[in-house]
């Protein structure tokens, strides 16, 4: 059996900007309520068009769990590592807080955690994955913006979505090969 390759596919057109995902993430992962301490976010994109023909999209995002992760390459102590299933994680006990990963991340997905005294980021809720559950942000979303699944499973919902609609990655020119895809 193939090792799973976890991925998240996001359909931003479904996002209501309710921010339930950000709240779920904070509760699930005990992320402190501080200005810079957040693992996921929902950006309100600029208004498009002119009144009365207006449109606004919301872009939920987080660590892109890159296959070519710059944060992992610059980490001097191997504190940042990628699991076999493609989840990029931080071993808090190995982090020396040099913050090179924060400078190298093109998505600004990392922050200094006062709780862990290390750099913290989205873990794709790996503790839930090990129990066969989805990440908290995926499970809580009322409109199912995020779909989580295994790219190695041809029958998975993520493969069905990626096979049926155009998709794109954030900052593709960075050649980071993210595991998060956005539907066009």
């Amino acid at each position: 059996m193939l090792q799973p390759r976890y991925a998240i596919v996001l359909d931003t057109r479904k996002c209501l900007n309710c921010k339930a995902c950000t709240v779920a993430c904070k509760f699930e992962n005990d992320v402190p309520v501080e200005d810079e301490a957040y693992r996921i976010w929902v950006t309100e994109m600029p208004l498009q068009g002119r009144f009365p023909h207006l449109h606004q999209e919301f872009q939920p995002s987080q660590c892109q769990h890159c296959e070519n992760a710059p944060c992992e390459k610059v980490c001097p102590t191997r504190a940042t590592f990628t699991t076999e299933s493609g989840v990029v994680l931080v071993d808090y006990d190995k982090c020396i807080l040099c913050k090179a990963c924060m400078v190298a991340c093109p998505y600004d997905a990392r922050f200094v955690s006062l709780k862990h005294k290390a750099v913290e980021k989205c873990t794709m809720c790996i503790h839930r994955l090990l129990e066969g559950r989805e990440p908290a942000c995926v499970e809580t979303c009322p409109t199912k913006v995020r779909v989580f699944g295994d790219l190695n499973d041809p029958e998975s919902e993520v493969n069905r979505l990626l096979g049926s609609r155009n998709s794109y990655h954030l900052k593709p020119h960075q050649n980071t090969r993210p595991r998060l895809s956005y539907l066009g």
Partner: protein
Amino acid sequence: MTVLKGKLQHIIRDNREVPSLPFIGLGGLLLIVGMIGVLLVFSKGHEAVYGVSREVPWGLLIASYAYLVITSTGLAFIGGLGHAFGFASFAKMNRRIVVLAFITLLAGFTQIGMELGHPFRLMYLFLLSPQFKAPIVWMGIFYSIELLILGVELYLIFKPGPTSHRLSAFFGFLALLVGIIATSNLGFVFGSINARPFFHGIYFPIFLVVSGIVAGAALLLVIHNIVFKFRIEEKLTDSMQALGRLMGLGIGVMIFLYVWKFAVSLYVEPEGAVQAAYALLSGPLAAHFWIGEVGLALVLPLLLIILCRAGNSMVLGLAGLVYLLGLFFTRYDFIVAGQLPPMRQGFEGSGVHTVNGLAGYAPSPVEWMIFALGLGIFFVLYFLAERFLNLET
């Protein structure tokens, strides 16, 4: 005891001719300020007292670290030219060069030590779990080797009895070589970061080496003027002139590099690089850039060198002093400017804080206090060496 005294006689002296006490006093004051800063960091935590943020994670202490350690490798380069490549005018200053390089490197290490959240963890994890793909690991390795080589050089220059010229030349060459590798690799720490277009590329590995050599020459000019109270003895006049010419040449190369760096960053407006360039030219760092980087580190010292035709040691000393002041802005600006363009636009909900599309950073008082610690260590140790060691080559 008498034997030991005899052996140390040629090293130790009480040199009251050198005006070392005011600088030891100044260094002492800076050290006290720095130690208070250290206590604040350890009692309140780095995050509580440093001005760095999620958007700008590297600040003043990375700049001051670069400022000091790159100056040290610049000194080692000049020392290597003297020992290994037969530049007699530099070889004449060898003891001062080695002592200065060693102490400047130590002072630089205090800055990175206080910047890192877990400096002690670093020490064993670099051995137990090094990531050899990471430029920071090589930075640690090369600067540690440089410190070791400078330590051996210190032993060689102060050991009793004659030292084989070949041995000195060998270690002088090693210090030069490892110094260049260490500094260019420090440039690679920034140059490898694809996410920050202003950093990315080969510019900084080259620029840091060149500006570091100029810094080494500038520091030697300043120190000799202080030691000889602006009346540098005749036998060192040609050394001062050679340092002046080296500075002038280096500043010329720096201007050349600046021109193309800004041309590349402005032409067709590459995302990330153009915002950083404008942050320097007309944005929040403009005063630093025009007054500090351009005025003090390039134009004024070059003018002074040209006007005195690299001939007047006192004017060259002034050029060195002005350059070292300006170079601080150069180091600070490049670290900060590269991080000001945010990785995500500061729209509502993004969590990113921007003003006019740029992130912000201002060093905190405690960061300045830690910088004072590095300067204090430099002043105290170096001028104690001037006072009590025989630094005449």
